[in-house]
């Protein structure tokens, strides 16, 4: 087992990793920028090294500085956390080349899943369904109609050279397709200088469902159930829950089974998450994250498995030591991401925390590096805390969430706690009746 782990990250996730290390008797090295000298993870670490100025590219993404810090402190392994260098295959390879263990999957798997096109091809090869689409560009209306019949309506006409949602048209039937195709082509030509378009199944109200996987790279592989992360704003997850209120037992078994088989074939080592869109009983693979996820605590709450601890054990070469049948899920868990942002305009609000009181009591967990007097720096992500609640049932969990939000005091800066309070009282959320577009409407209605 490792004696000393360098944590190449900041904020709550760096603290989360520090906690796992300390519970395993492992010493920690916190690397930090000049802006994070007073951060809680830095104050608690056994050793600290300032590696650069505030800009992340010069500090938290500065590979040479991180490797040097590992060398001068004599660390055995580097945990990249999430974001920054966590999914940088070259970084993972460099860490290993310098004789340190990388706490994460192999560079090869990070690279494979980092390329969205290659990842989808790999998923199809591994037997995982992806959003159906045309093979290459469609030449004319007749070809488009043939493709659309196979794909299934409604279809999305997308510009081959496009991106960012521009030049996309929805067709619900052959008549609409015949009418929209020429428009889409001329728009594509106007926007992107290339009139090529292709078709893809349009999902109007999908949910975002993801499966947590742990593999030891030695044949041991398990899933830790799903997470429903459909409550999103600008493609950022806001609140996550597990189990998903939308899945039935048969669907859950099918999806988790598929994920486990696919990653066993791949020989996957470490923690990973397969993300899917789910609609009308069908699942479509979108991407795989080859790292720890922000929302991992809800899975820990219902499975009783410490995912960070498992990442470290696996990186040290230990086998899982348990199989799927040994894992049982208990109750329901919800996580609220609390950002230093105005809850209506979502403008970031860095500054000094003048009052701090974290909720407690049964079934409440707070993953946060905040403290009274802490100065939230303006240089990084606005996520400052994760409130995680667990209950025997979804209803108990919701009641607990409301009272925990009532208790939480973060003074001096604006936070998204009021948004979560509104959400926790919203009928559609209480009923579990929401899709990936619901939150945007919910927030927009108010504005």
């Amino acid at each position: 087992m490792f004696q000393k782990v360098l944590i190449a990250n900041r904020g709550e996730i760096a603290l989360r990793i520090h906690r796992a290390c300390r519970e395993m008797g492992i010493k920690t090295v916190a690397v930090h920028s000049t802006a994070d000298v007073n951060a809680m993870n830095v104050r608690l670490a056994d050793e600290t090294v300032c590696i650069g100025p505030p800009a992340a590219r010069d500090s938290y993404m500065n590979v040479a500085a991180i490797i040097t810090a590992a060398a001068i402190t004599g660390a055995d392994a580097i945990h990249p956390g999430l974001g920054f260098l966590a999914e940088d295959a070259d970084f993972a390879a460099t860490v290993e080349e310098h004789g340190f263990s990388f706490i994460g999957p192999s560079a090869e798997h990070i690279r494979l899943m980092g390329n969205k096109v290659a990842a989808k091809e790999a998923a199809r090869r591994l037997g995982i369904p992806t959003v159906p689409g045309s093979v290459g560009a469609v030449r004319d209306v007749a070809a488009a109609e043939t493709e659309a019949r196979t794909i299934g309506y409604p279809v999305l006409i997308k510009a081959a050279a496009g991106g960012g949602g521009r030049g996309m048209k929805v067709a619900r039937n052959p008549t609409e397709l015949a009418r929209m195709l020429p428009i889409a082509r001329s728009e594509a030509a106007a926007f992107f200088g290339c009139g090529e378009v292709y078709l893809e199944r349009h999902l109007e109200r999908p949910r975002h469902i993801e499966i947590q996987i742990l593999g030891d790279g030695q044949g041991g592989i398990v899933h830790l159930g799903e997470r429903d992360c459909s409550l999103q704003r600008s493609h950022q997850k806001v609140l996550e829950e597990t189990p998903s209120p939308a899945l039935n037992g048969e669907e859950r078994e099918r999806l988790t089974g598929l994920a486990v088989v696919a990653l066993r074939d791949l020989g996957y080592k470490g923690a990973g998450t397969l993300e899917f869109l789910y609609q009308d009983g069908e699942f479509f693979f979108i991407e795989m994250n080859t790292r720890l996820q922000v929302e991992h605590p809800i899975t820990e709450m219902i499975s009783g498995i410490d995912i960070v601890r498992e990442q470290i054990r696996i990186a040290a070469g230990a086998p899982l030591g348990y199989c799927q049948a040994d894992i049982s899920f208990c109750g329901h868990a919800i996580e609220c991401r609390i950002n230093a942002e105005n809850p209506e305009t979502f403008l970031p609000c860095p500054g000094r925390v003048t009052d701090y009181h974290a909720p407690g009591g049964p079934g409440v967990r707070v993953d946060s590096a905040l403290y009274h007097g802490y100065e939230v720096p303006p240089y990084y992500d606005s996520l400052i805390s994760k409130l995680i609640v667990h209950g025997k049932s979804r209803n108990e969990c919701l009641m607990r969430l409301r009272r925990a939000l009532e208790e939480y005091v973060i003074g001096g800066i604006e936070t998204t706690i009021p948004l979560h309070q509104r959400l926790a009282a919203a009928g559609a959320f209480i009923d579990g009746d929401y899709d990936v577009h619901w939150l945007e409407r919910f927030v927009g209605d108010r504005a």
Partner: protein
Amino acid sequence: MKIGGRSPPFPDAELIRTLAALLNETGLTEIEYAIGDRRIRIARVPGGAGLATTAAVAALSPLPAPAALVDHPGAVKAPVVGTAYLAPQPGDPPFVRLGDAVTEGQPLLIVEAMKVMNQIRAHRPGRIAQILIADAQPVEYGAILMLIE
């Protein structure tokens, strides 16, 4: 930077370590340091146990950048995290010694990061008033290495 232990709860403790190390390095018998109405005096008691204890503490923990020097215009700071070397090669005489006059651009020391030797040069002319690191000492980004006055 803290290596091999937890940060002292008060900046004073760091300051005392810094001063104690300076006492050893310069061979002085006494240093008095005042900021506002706060005053710290570090004295060498001939043959006493006091200094030995202080020096041992200083040796255990690499020096943090003394807060008072951060804004000093003559402070030479580490541009990267790495290992500082005072001489071009092991066994060679150091680039500079305490009290040496230096010209702008003159090499002062090396900070090695990932086997790359980064030569640190004087950013202004003057005299080497302080050398705050030992040879082969790990230094973090922004650490104050020397003071030119």
